[in-house]
């Protein structure tokens, strides 16, 4: 069950503000600030997803990916095998919207996602990695850490 569910219109301009904010944090307080804020967001705002991963129940993470990428018209699929859950994003709605507004996507958004994902799985038996595969695409992989197998 998703902790937060949004209805109605989607205001995609918030992606631009997110991107500007990530830059602001780095420019004014350094990389550690970016990590700290994204870690707090991942572990405190998304507490139920974080706790779910710690308890080996990744269902809400999958629901979160599906619900919000569908809401924002992303092109994606989720592949599940016994040991791995893989989110394949072929066209990221956040990067696509940035490109629409500013002419190009900003890779800092992807770096932010990687930091966020790392923090989300921190302290859990899983690792959640983010691999950028193109200007608008990535693969996010949830799998058990080697030490947990």
């Amino acid at each position, binding site marked *: 069950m998703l902790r937060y569910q949004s209805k109605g219109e989607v205001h995609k301009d918030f*992606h631009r503000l*997110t991107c*500007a904010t990530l830059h602001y*944090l780095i420019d004014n307080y350094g990389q550690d600030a970016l990590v700290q804020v994204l870690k707090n*967001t991942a572990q405190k*705002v998304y507490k139920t997803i974080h706790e779910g991963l710690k308890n080996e129940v990744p269902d809400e993470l999958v629901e979160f990916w599906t619900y*919000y990428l569908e809401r924002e018209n992303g092109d994606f699929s989720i592949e599940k095998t016994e040991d791995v859950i893989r989110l394949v994003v072929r066209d990221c709605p956040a990067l696509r919207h940035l490109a629409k507004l500013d002419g190009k996507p900003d890779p800092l958004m992807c770096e932010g996602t990687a930091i966020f994902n790392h923090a989300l799985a921190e302290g859990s038996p899983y690792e959640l990695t983010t691999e950028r595969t193109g200007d608008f695409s990535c693969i996010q992989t949830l799998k058990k850490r080697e030490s947990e197998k």
Partner: protein
Amino acid sequence: MIPSDHFVRFYNEVFKFIDAQGPEELKKYYDRVSKNQEYHCLKLFTEEKLEGMYKYWEHIRIEENCDMVNRLEDGCYSFEFFSCPSLSKAVDNDAGPCPKYCNHCPGWILPLMTKAGVFAVYNLIDRKQPRCEMFVFTEKERAAKQAALLIEKYGKDVILTNF
């Protein structure tokens, strides 16, 4: 990706972090946000003044699903949020709201109003409630009169102006 629907809850964490860095840090951040917002509204506000503000917040009302009213009457643009979606999300949040969360709206809006050559009075009402209102005039005297009325009713701490 942080969904655009969840931007507010991320923003709330940003405010907590920046506020902890020093007393003037949030003000500096609001100035930067205001600068970024010029992209969306400065031309509209400068060229069309109160009508431009009505257009901008009408667009926001629809796209951000706001329970609010926009008014343009008797030489005054005003809005009133009955249930601000932004603070509502910051409150409906396992991380808890930043006590200064509401300050960001006047923080970015008031500098833009100055650049647009108008006079604004922002009433936060109560930082714990998702309600607020703003009144904008082209004459400073009328804005000052409105500010005085609101200060008498709500107190100085929640009334902010750009003059």
